[in-house]
């Protein structure tokens, strides 16, 4: 497939539109939701205005419209949104997933949800404990992938939460509790290895196999927890290898808000990973060139692609295209090979409004173009 230099890709979830949130729980749309749906449909044209179902949805009362149709429209909206803003690789904004951890664990056996834990500020996730051996009820993300495949106009990249993150974000009670001396560090470490490998082999690998059988070619394994315990980087790689063993697809690993120096070189052992998709913009300041960290990959002689985080997903301030361009050019110098760089937000844009996320992604696309022009100019 021919691509421009610095192709642009999605990295994860988008905020769910109000009309989807209301519609999928069977509530009637309020004025704000109707306005929002009309405004985005005017821009993206994702639902034919003459579609009777659209008119019915806009005017229906509580419980009068099928929730599954609303979820499908949410997926369609996510696809057209990311295509419309100009990304080369897209997905559906994870429109049908409750959240990246829970959406996966719900389909696994051996887990019990304990309640919400705060991640930061007023953001939380529902955390489960492994209370029995890990298994799989049924492969997941298949339905959403099939729908996306049927409707996408650009290349798809499907995000899947990785085994290390699933294990790290859970309480490891089954594999830990059956060991004598479970309070000791050595017991915790061995129990964690057992847990990660069980999640990888028993739950994620069969899911990946089913997705590939359904036609999925490009898969991003999300491991935001990878940097949590720097001395477990080798376990992140082991989990990835176990999950992807024998599977023919183009894999990337997404990691964010971590000290990458602590992960490499151990992570280089992730054999089938073709791209490192990493957050940088959050930590790039006037006083700190975050992109200089990429020189590390050159030092290790690693020649894989880099998915470059150029948008801070936790702030509303919209990056200027020139700022994005400069970030890309700095990264190109540090990596020593612009041809291996994809550009993306640091992480999912779910915590930003759709308007802010759109403006940021526009800057990303424009910044990539400016970077191409800049390199073409300097080459000439």
């Amino acid at each position: 497939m021919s691509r421009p230099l610095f192709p642009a890709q999605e990295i994860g979830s988008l905020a769910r539109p109000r009309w989807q949130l209301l519609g999928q729980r069977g509530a009637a749309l309020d004025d704000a939701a109707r306005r929002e749906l009309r405004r985005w449909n005017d821009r993206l044209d994702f639902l034919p205005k003459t579609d009777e179902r659209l008119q019915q949805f806009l005017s229906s009362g509580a419980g009068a419209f099928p929730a599954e149709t609303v979820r499908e429209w949410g997926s369609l909206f996510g696809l057209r949104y990311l295509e419309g803003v100009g990304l080369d690789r897209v997905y559906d904004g994870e429109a049908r997933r409750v959240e990246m951890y829970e959406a996966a664990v719900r389909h696994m056996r051996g887990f019990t949800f304990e309640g919400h834990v705060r991640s930061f500020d007023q953001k939380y996730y529902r955390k489960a404990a492994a209370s029995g051996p890990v298994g799989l009820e049924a492969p997941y993300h298949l339905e959403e992938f099939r729908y996306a495949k049927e409707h996408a106009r650009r290349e798809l990249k499907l995000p899947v939460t990785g085994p290390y993150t699933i294990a790290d974000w859970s309480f490891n009670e089954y594999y830990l509790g059956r060991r004598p001396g479970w309070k000791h560090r050595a017991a915790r470490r061995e129990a964690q290895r057992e847990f990660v490998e069980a999640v990888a082999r028993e739950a994620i690998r069969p899911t990946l196999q089913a997705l590939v059988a359904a036609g999925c070619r490009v898969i991003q394994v999300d491991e935001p927890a990878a940097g949590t315990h720097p001395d477990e980087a080798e376990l992140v790689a082991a989990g990835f290898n176990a999950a992807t063993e024998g599977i023919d697809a183009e894999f990337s690993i997404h990691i964010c808000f971590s000290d990458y120096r602590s992960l490499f070189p151990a992570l280089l052992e992730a054999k089938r990973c073709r791209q490192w998709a990493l957050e940088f913009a959050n930590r790039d300041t006037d006083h700190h060139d975050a992109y200089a960290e990429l020189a590390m990959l050159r030092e290790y002689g690693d020649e894989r692609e880099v998915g470059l985080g150029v948008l801070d997903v936790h702030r509303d301030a919209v990056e200027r295209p020139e700022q994005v361009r400069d970030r890309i050019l700095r990264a190109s110098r540090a990596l020593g090979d612009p041809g291996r760089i994809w550009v993306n937000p640091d992480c999912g844009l779910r915590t930003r409004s759709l308007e802010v996320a759109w403006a940021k992604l526009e800057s990303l696309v424009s910044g990539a173009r400016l970077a191409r022009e800049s390199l073409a100019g300097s080459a000439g």
Partner: protein
Amino acid sequence: MIPLATSLTGPFPRPETVVAATRDLDRGRARPEEVEAAYRAAERELVGLERELGLLPRTGGYLRWPDLFRPFASGWRGLEVGPLTRWFETNTFYRQPILRHPPERTPGALSAWLPAATTSLPASEAKVILPGPYTFAELLDNQSGETSLSLIHRLGRLLSEEIRELRSLGYGQFQFQEPLLVLRPPEGPAAESVRAAYRALADALGPSESALWTFFGDAAPTFPLLASLPVSYVGIDLAETDPDALSAPQGLPGLGLGCIDPRTTLVEEPAELARIVARTVERLHPRRITLGPGAALDLLPWPAAVRKLRMLPKARAEIVSTGAAG
């Protein structure tokens, strides 16, 4: 018998009601008054639980603090709320404070975040939990040009001014969170700066009770330094520290044993804890023992935190029955 106390040592998790209210506020589905009501109800319930379990001093849970540094990053001049940064080896993040100019405190700003302002607890019953000067200085992004050594001392002096103000409001119990003292132990001049900062704090503390609480790391290598600092007791995280490996000079002040591990929902065994306490008392002769969570329980969901906290009175009863403390 040496005195034995039990107390929370950091923020408690937010209950589902507060989770829902704060989420709804972010999504424009709740009003600030509804969030405030959810906080009030949760704080009332938690203070009730602290009373029921005999915990003292009490905390009210510090449910409103986004992270350990936010009241300072948003309240002190010279500091800004910075990027999202991982809180040690957890899936929790804090906003790293950015120091652009020498910091200056804003009188009155901190007290609005503290238990007497947000809960029904009187200041005299409440514990003030603050960042320790070493951890604070090392975790902020120092762009002020001031050296790290000087900054540790300066933050000690500024926290001292806060303590003087808080004592005038009736607070008399303070705890300093110092995970970095065990994770990145200071050496040489840095250790001297830490001592100077804690001397400044001791001057301001006067007769107040003070704790230095360490967590997430093995306290044994740094314990001689920790035990020499002028605080009422030093807390260690038993998930990371083997108390049998501690060596301390004669005259060890109090010892805090962080016996609840917030990284697992498995509940600790009171009898095992009683054995640890008996052995530690016999070997180190602390003047007092305080039991509490090793690190903040906000790594757990509320129901699991309550379940684990309920172990403390049982552990206390076991310890009393051994005669080691009471």
